[in-house]
Structures are given as structure tokens and as C-alpha cells.
């Protein structure tokens, strides 16, 4: 067991190292950040000065060495655009991302699970068709488009909700729905298929034969078992939501990590892109590591 955990830990470290090399090189082939920080037509001296300030005049191995040694000290560097420590920026944005992801997750579960159950219980009837249409729309409508439509309707036309920004619960409503919509559709589909599988199982048939009311069969016997894969997916989706809310956060000017990443990419702010990608990657690696360990704890036969 100990060897297994150490091996998985080793794989995680290697993954993060490879991610650091990849992101370090990839951001650097996309262009020169200095040219984006001045007007076109700025002098050579100004461009050179910016490159010197950022250390971009150094050879790539030297830049990587400096990046990785700072990283080992917990220093993600200074943002080119903001000129403040990247970690400070990231940590100031993370609570907003977690709040948005949490609210979007609640929305996606509250909408996705009941519609999935109803679709499974009323399979191949009109409720199921409604559910399928909902899932199709959710999975195919881009979140920025959903977001803009909501802004037009709820902010401009009805005047009920603020169009952008953060600070109150009202600010959270539209971004959470825009982000949660696609996940609600995914959760609906999974709940439906999981419920259908469980509803066809022997113990559910037995429960029905025992004469239990249908509501009790569904809520007590079928639902609890059908929920396991949905919650597993929801856990992974929560991490994904924190890291993929780029478009929604930009449309709603929501100050999260996604918007920070978007700005980092737009301005070739290498330290910001490196930090957000690495920390996002670290979240996924850690979650996977914990899942691997949990599997091994639950099922001793698992030793990859």
C-alpha cells in the first residue's frame, strides 16, 4: 500500500513537472509580451527595457531555471501586466471562482438530478422528450451566448439583475446559471441513464413485488444507488468549473481565476498563465491522486 501511494505520488510530481515545462515553452512561442505593453511605434529602447525588466532577454534555459527555483520557494513571480505577485492575484481571485463554481454546481444538481429522475421514471414519454431537449440545448448552446441572452433579458429588458460584476447574491445569479447550464444537462443525462439501470435491477423489482409504494421505491431504493456516479461526476466537474469558467467570467466581468487566465493569455502575461495553469493542473492532479488512493483503500485488489 505504502509503495503504491509513493508510486502514485511520484507520477503526480512527474505530471506537474511535465506540465511546468510544457506551459513554460508554450506561452513563449505565442509572441513577445513587450509589444503588447506599448503602443505600436514605441521605441526599440522601450521594448528592450521591458524585456530586461521581465528577464526575457535571457536564454530560455536560464529563464526556466529561474522560474523553477522560484516555484520551489513558492514564488510564482510577478505579473507582467499588473506588476504584483502572481500568487497574491491568484489567491484574491480564487474565492470568487469557488463561489461561482459552487453556485453553478448547486444549480446544475438542483436542475439536473430531478429532471433526470423524471425522465427515467417517465421514460419514452413526453417528460423524457422534454428532458432530452433540455439536455441537447444545454450541451449545445455556448455559455457566452446563454450569458449574453440572459443579460439582455434580465438586465436590460426587465432590469431585475445587474449585468456584470460581483459583490451581492444578485450578481451571482446569471453567471452561475450560464456556467451551470451545460453541467446541468450533463448531470441530467447521467442521472437518467443511471436511474434506468438501477430501476431495471433485481432488488428494485423485489421492492416493487413487496408492494412498496412507487415513490418509496424510487426515492429510497433506486435514487440512492443511482446517485453515486452522478456525485462522482459532480466532484470532478466542480474542479473543472473552477478552471473553465473563462468565458462566463469574461462575459459577466466576474473576477475569478478564469478571467485572470484570459487576461494572462491576452497580454502574454507569462507568469500569470504559468501560475493559473499549474495551480489548476495541481488541483486536478491532487483530486486524481486522492481518488486513486481512495480506490485502493476501498478495494484492496487495486494496485496499478
Amino acid at each position: 500500500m505504502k509503495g503504491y501511494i509513493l508510486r502514485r505520488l511520484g507520477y503526480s510530481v512527474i505530471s506537474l513537472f511535465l506540465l511546468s515545462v510544457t506551459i513554460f515553452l508554450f506561452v513563449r512561442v505565442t509572441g513577445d509580451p513587450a509589444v503588447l505593453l506599448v503602443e505600436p511605434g514605441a521605441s526599440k529602447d522601450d521594448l528592450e527595457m521591458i524585456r530586461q525588466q521581465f528577464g526575457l532577454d535571457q536564454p530560455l534555459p536560464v529563464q526556466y531555471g529561474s522560474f523553477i527555483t522560484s516555484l520551489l520557494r513558492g514564488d510564482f513571480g510577478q505579473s507582467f501586466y499588473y506588476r504584483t505577485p502572481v500568487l497574491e492575484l491568484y489567491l484574491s481571485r480564487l474565492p470568487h471562482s469557488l463561489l461561482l463554481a459552487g453556485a453553478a454546481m448547486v444549480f446544475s444538481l438542483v436542475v439536473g438530478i430531478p429532471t433526470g429522475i423524471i425522465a427515467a421514471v417517465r421514460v419514452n414519454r413526453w417528460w423524457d422528450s422534454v428532458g432530452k431537449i433540455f439536455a441537447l440545448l444545454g450541451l449545445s448552446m455556448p455559455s457566452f451566448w446563454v450569458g449574453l441572452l440572459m443579460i439582455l433579458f434580465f438586465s436590460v429588458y426587465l432590469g431585475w439583475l445587474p449585468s456584470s460584476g460581483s459583490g451581492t447574491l444578485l450578481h451571482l445569479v446569471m453567471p452561475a446559471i450560464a456556467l451551470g447550464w451545460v453541467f446541468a444537462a450533463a448531470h441530467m443525462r447521467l442521472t437518467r441513464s443511471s436511474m434506468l439501470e438501477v430501476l431495471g435491477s433485481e432488488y428494485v423489482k423485489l421492492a416493487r413485488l413487496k408492494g412498496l409504494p412507487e415513490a418509496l421505491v424510487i426515492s429510497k431504493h433506486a435514487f440512492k444507488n443511482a446517485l453515486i456516479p452522478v456525485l462522482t461526476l459532480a466532484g470532478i466537474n466542480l474542479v473543472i468549473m473552477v478552471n473553465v469558467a473563462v468565458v462566463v467570467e469574461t462575459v459577466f466581468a466576474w473576477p475569478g481565476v478564469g478571467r485572470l487566465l484570459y487576461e494572462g493569455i491576452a497580454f502574454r502575461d507569462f507568469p500569470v498563465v504559468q501560475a493559473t495553469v499549474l495551480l489548476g493542473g495541481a488541483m486536478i492532479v491532487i483530486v486524481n491522486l486522492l481518488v486513486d488512493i481512495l480506490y485502493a483503500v476501498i478495494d484492496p485488489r487495486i494496485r496499478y
Partner: protein
Amino acid sequence: MTWGLHVTLASRWLDPAETEALITPFMVLYAIHDALVKPMPAGPNTPSLAESWSVSKDGLTYEFVLRKLATFHNGDPVSADDVKFSFDRYKGAAAKLLKDKVREVQVVDARRVRFHLKEPWPDFMTFYGTSASGAAWIVPRKYVEKVGDDGFKKAPVGAGPYRVVSFTPGVELVMEAFDGYWRKTPSVKRLVFRSIPEEATRAAALKNGEVDIVYLLSGPIAEDVRRTPSLQLVPSQPPAVFWLEFLDQWDPKSPWHDRRVRLAASLAIDRQAVNQAETLGFSRPTGSIIPRAFEYALPFDPPPYDPRRAKQLLVEAGYPNGFDAGDFYPFPPYTSMGEAVAGYLQALGIRTRIQTMERATFLTAWREKKFRGLVMGITGAAGNAATRLEAYVTNGGIYAYGVVPEVEDLFQRQGREHDRARREALLHQIQKILHERVMHAPIYELAFIWGVGPRVEESGADLIRGHAYSAPYEDLRLRKQ
């Protein structure tokens, strides 16, 4: 008064020492800080924290006398020592140039400071006293030394009309009026800058009354704002000019080497139609790559839209059936405008292939001279006619693909000329040569379109010539409710 900004609020804009060669930081500087001399409604080098400035006859010494009443937000008076300190710590745009040229900054007394140059430099005030640099913007020495550079960016203290109440990097900057501002007490008590990068969301926030002014509207969204009765569209006129650059004109084998072909291309573009489609007619078609607002500019009328004459010129040049002109690189993100211009060239028989690319890649490739064919360029860099010309038509120009020896000679001479009138004559001569040779096809001076809400009485648009944003903030007014 609340703004919906098109840009992300950066911490570095709160510290004048880090002002890069961009106009954007001045949006914040004009509120929080103040300069010895800066562009104001009265002119480009208007005394501000300095009540006066003078230059010695030999052009080697510039003396500034500070105002008695000017104080920082923490109550400290603005002193000559702060001026020297601010210059010494300055590391933004043109820092190397200024420090190479300035031999010494001498604190004569508490209210008097002298800049001694190594040699006469006619552009000293262009770089020191305009938005070409942030070197003249003054910070309080004692406070900066106490809190450090990072601390200053978190809680800046300036001598401007507004003091910072709170700042969330990238999100929001809240300021309140500083009653002790020397020029006047601002009429609007609270300013809020909010970053709203998505244009449609900015427009929605304006229509919803969440913000009073939004920057950078275009196309259908601007049209929608124009149709909304309570809102108005306001153009400001930054010193940004679009033009078509004939990169291959230096190659004798290229059709672009022939002036008639370049003139034909220029006459084939319907500038007003492009202006109407792209900026709702707010931009100003032009015949020069130098903005009219620049010192030493020689304005030229935009070439007329004359496709018949254009065709005739092309026939005379030996291309009755047109020619394949290769790639056409529009400045990102102005692809639709590039397509419109390429369409006019196509109608004339000049066939191009539009190549779109991401901005950083585009600028790097242009600067490294990897492009062939045509570039549709734009720049809004601050300065004067000489600084604008330097980048595009001289030996030292980072975007110059070739140089006319006569232009280079005139450019070198104007750089040594201390007499303003003679220097102006030399710079005008350069612009005449460029115009006569049709080295570029200037298109228009870009209008930067704002949306303004019903509460705003004075938005500050174009009060300062060539400034893209609201300013001076102390002159803004809200309507009385």
C-alpha cells in the same frame, strides 16, 4: 460617476514610475496623480504642479517653479525634492532616452528644480511634458520610501484631484474627490472605474444605468446605443491613424515600386464608406500618417475616392489586368476593416490574400520585417510628428522596411535644429515628400467611441486634444437631479 472600462485595471497604472508607452495608464494618472507639466485643455505642455517653466537660451537647462498650494493627498507639500526623486525612480516609457539626455536634476530650493541636459534636445518637453512618458508625474518621496514600491501600488498617494478609496486589481478602482487639489475642488465626489472587458456587457451596463460612461463601442452595438434615446455616442480623437503600408515598394521588381500603382491603390479606397461601416462615420479620413493634433503635423486632405482615375493609373503603369499583390495583413483585431480595404483593391484588380493573426504575433513579425505585401497599420503612440516619423520612415525605425535618403537626411537635421520654425519647416518637408511619393495610403484618424448615460453633463471627451479618455476629471459634472 462610474465608468465601464474596456481594459483590465492594472496595479502598475497607479504608479507613474511604471508608465509604459501607452495612453491607457493616463486614464488613471489624471485622477490620482499630477505632473509638473501635462497636456490640458490649454495645450500640450500646460503648467500644472509647476506654475511656470522656462528654458535657457542655449537649450541646455529647463527650470520649473512649483506651486505654493500643491499638496499630496497625505498633506505633504509637493517639493522640488519629490520632483527629483520621481525622475530618478522613473523606469517607464522613454526612461532610457530621458536619462541619457539629462545630465543632472538640480534641486535649487524647495520650489525650484532645474533639469540640465548634456546637449540641447528640442524634444525634451515632448517626452517630459506630454503623455509620451510619465516622467513628469510626481510622487511623494517620503511616503514611497516608507511603504516601498509594492506598497505604493497597493495604496498610492498622489497630488491629483482624486484619492484612492479602494482598488481591486483587474476589477475596480474607487476614488473620492480631494478637496485640497490646487486647481479646483472636483464637482463629482466619487469616481468608480470598473473593468468590463466584454463590449456587449459594457453596453448593457450603460443601458441598465449601472455605469455612466463606457469606452470602446463599435459596429452594431454602438448603433444600438445611438438608437437608445437616453444615451449618446461620443467620439474622442486619440492620435491614432490607420494607413496602408506598401512593404514591397522598396523592391524595384515589385509593382508597388511604381508611384502610380501606390497612388491608384490609395484612390481606390472609399475612406468615408469604410469609416461609416467601421466607426459610424465618427473617424476622420486623412491624407497623412501624422495625426492632425500632433506638433509639427502637416495635414493633408484625404485622397478622393476615384476608382476611374485609379484604373487609369494602373493601366499607365502597365497593369491593365491588375496583379497579384500577395498577402495583406490587417492590424489585429481590425480584420473587417482590412477586408473592406482589400475589397476596394480587388475591385481595382489588385488581388490580395487576407492573413489574420494574433496581435503579439503580428507585431513581432512586422517588427522583424517578416511580412511581404501589404500591412494595414495603426498606431496611437504619443509624441510629435518627429517621434511618429522615426518609427516608420527612418533608418532607426523599428517598422521601416526602407528609407528615402532625402527623408533620412532631413530627419537627422531636424533632430539637431533648435529653432522651432526651422525644425517645423524640415519636418513639413519630410511629410510633403512622403505625401508626394505616396509612401503610404493613409485611411483615417480613428475615433474612439464612448457611450454616455443620461446623468452625465460633462463627460470630459476631447477637452484635452488627442486624449482618448475623460479628463481633466476635476472638470467633469453630473446633471443636477
